[in-house]
């Protein structure tokens, strides 16, 4: 617990405090930072770059986490649920590999894959000269992040599906329900809790994911400057730590809103099941 207080609570609160100052890493403001109150927040909220990055982040989270990872992870888990043996192990191992490899390594893999000139993808699709990362930057990092993070959802859903009694699925089948109806009527209501845990965690992680920076550096023209990249640039490249901290806090608040939405859904489920 001390560990958490020392290395989590304390720095977090300090960051919140920094957000109220004009602290910079260098320059005059580093020598004597001033408390500027909510000015940073004011600035952030009226900054196009902030709103741009917020919109991008939401797209990124929605596209890669909520839709991508969760859906792909679920699809794999669903199709593999009754399988055993080499096929399942291979699929799972590959998916998990993408999850555990260090991000600096996998970004190289993806840069090579999507490269304009000699990229594997262009060679495969016979689309020479397509600069995926430039022409479809958001799509690229979304697909990339799906690739990188689907494993967690897959594992979670595999476990969740294990909790769906086969008899429920079979009751639906006997009534003549197709796959979609089974998913809608039996599986989904049953694993709602897992779905929400999963969404909560992957949204949070994706929201804080800095890796796309290594792929696109926020570009082209800030079209992939998601929130963590924005903060990185503000805090590290421009050294504006006060401002960066304020944005971190804003990010936390947005995360909080997302978490509250999820928890609301969760509560509804709880009411419904008692």
């Amino acid at each position, binding site marked *: 617990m001390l560990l958490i207080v020392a290395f989590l609570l304390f720095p977090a609160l300090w960051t919140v405090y920094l957000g109220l100052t004009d602290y910079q890493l260098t320059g005059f403001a580093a020598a004597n930072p001033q408390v500027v109150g909510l000015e940073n927040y004011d600035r952030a909220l009226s900054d196009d770059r902030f709103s741009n990055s917020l919109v991008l982040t939401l797209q990124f989270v929605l596209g890669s986490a909520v839709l991508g990872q969760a859906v792909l992870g679920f699809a794999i888990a669903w199709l593999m649920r009754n399988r055993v043996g080499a096929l399942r192990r291979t699929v799972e191992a590959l998916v998990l590999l993408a999850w555990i490899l260090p991000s600096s390594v996998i970004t190289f893999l993806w840069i090579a894959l999507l490269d304009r000139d000699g990229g594997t993808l262009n060679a495969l699709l016979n689309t020479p000269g397509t600069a995926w990362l430039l022409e479809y930057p958001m799509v690229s990092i979304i697909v990339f992040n799906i690739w990188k993070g689907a494993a967690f959802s897959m594992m979670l859903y595999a476990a969740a599906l294990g909790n769906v009694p086969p008899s*429920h699925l*079979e*009751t639906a089948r*006997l*009534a*003549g329900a197709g796959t979609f109806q089974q998913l809608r009527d039996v599986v989904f209501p049953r694993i709602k809790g897992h779905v929400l845990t999963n969404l909560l965690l992957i949204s949070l992680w994706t929201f804080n994911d800095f890796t796309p920076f290594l792929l696109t550096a926020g570009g082209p023209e800030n079209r992939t400057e998601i929130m963590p990249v924005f903060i990185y640039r503000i805090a590290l490249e421009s050294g504006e730590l006060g401002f960066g901290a304020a944005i971190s806090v804003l990010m936390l608040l947005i995360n909080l809103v997302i978490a509250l939405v999820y928890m609301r859904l969760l509560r509804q489920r709880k009411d419904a099941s008692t």
Partner: protein
Amino acid sequence: MAAITTDRLTKVYPGGVRALDEIDLTVEDGEFFALLGPSGCGKTTLLRTVAGLEESSGGSLHIGDVDVTRTPPGSRDVAMVFQDYALFPHMTVAENVAYPLRIKKVARAKRTEKAAATAGELGLSDYLERRPGQLSGGQQQRVALARAMACHPSVFLFDEPLSNLDARMRLEARTFLKRLQRELGVTTVFVTHDQAEALALADRIAVMESGRIRQLGTPSEVFRRPANTFVASFIGSTPMNLLDGVVRPRGIEVAGELLPTPPEPAGRLVDGEKVVYGIRPEYLVHSPTAVPGSLAGEVRVVENLGHAQLVTLEGPAGFVQLVVDEDTPVALGDRGFAVPRQDRALVYRDGELVTSGDPTGLAAAGASGTA
């Protein structure tokens, strides 16, 4: 309504387990049919194959006159009640009951009405808006039944429908189920590992062991004349005493005591051959004093059966159990003597019942007898 006929129905699971081994079986139209057997004998597999939830590996299956061997489950016109009822926890009772109708695209108003009617027949009218979690086990079971009934299938399949109820409710539900089936007249197959349940409920019973049917007959046939020692030891609320014996000219010698040969196999035994002498605890009469042709022993355990007592004697023949009237005083450590009712004793040779040669006796195992 329809009869179910299987012809050399076989199911081999991917792992190589032969869960059904060329099962030939006919369940008559409107019959209440029990599948009984120890855990792992293939009861559930048979039921699921009938339902279409498992694909058979060989043989064929007819429901009514239609070959449904390759028909998907939703099109077989059967309803199944699972051991855990499989009620959808997020739906109300009414929604659960109406679910099959919803899948069959019955209009909302119509299906609500039909569901309410079916639930009403089972006394669930007051619970329509509750969720399964808010119901007792017995009520849940009735909801599962109502759901199965809702679309008027021609066959009901029950997999251990009572085993999740507590002892008291199980008894009530048993009687209820029997009455309901009688009224609906729908062909019903139900699986159980509780012989008492099977005896009480079924019109006919198939006793299974490792994927095969070991005996098929009415409850009293199966109870009185188990076709082999496996069935003998499986059927009966207290298992049959099966004692090693040797055929002698004037009876069967069990642990040095000569017991009279039962009338049926009398002419078919060869002097000196080894047989198993079977007698149910209910058909042993207790005597505190020595009687010729009885099994002696010391009272080891006395179990109260309510209006009777189950006494375990330990003697030269090993453990022998007998049922003693509640008013007869039996104390631990006493010596007791168990006198067989000769007309109810059975003799097994190589595990099979020795019969008078009357074909009905043998036919009970394997072929489908008359109910």
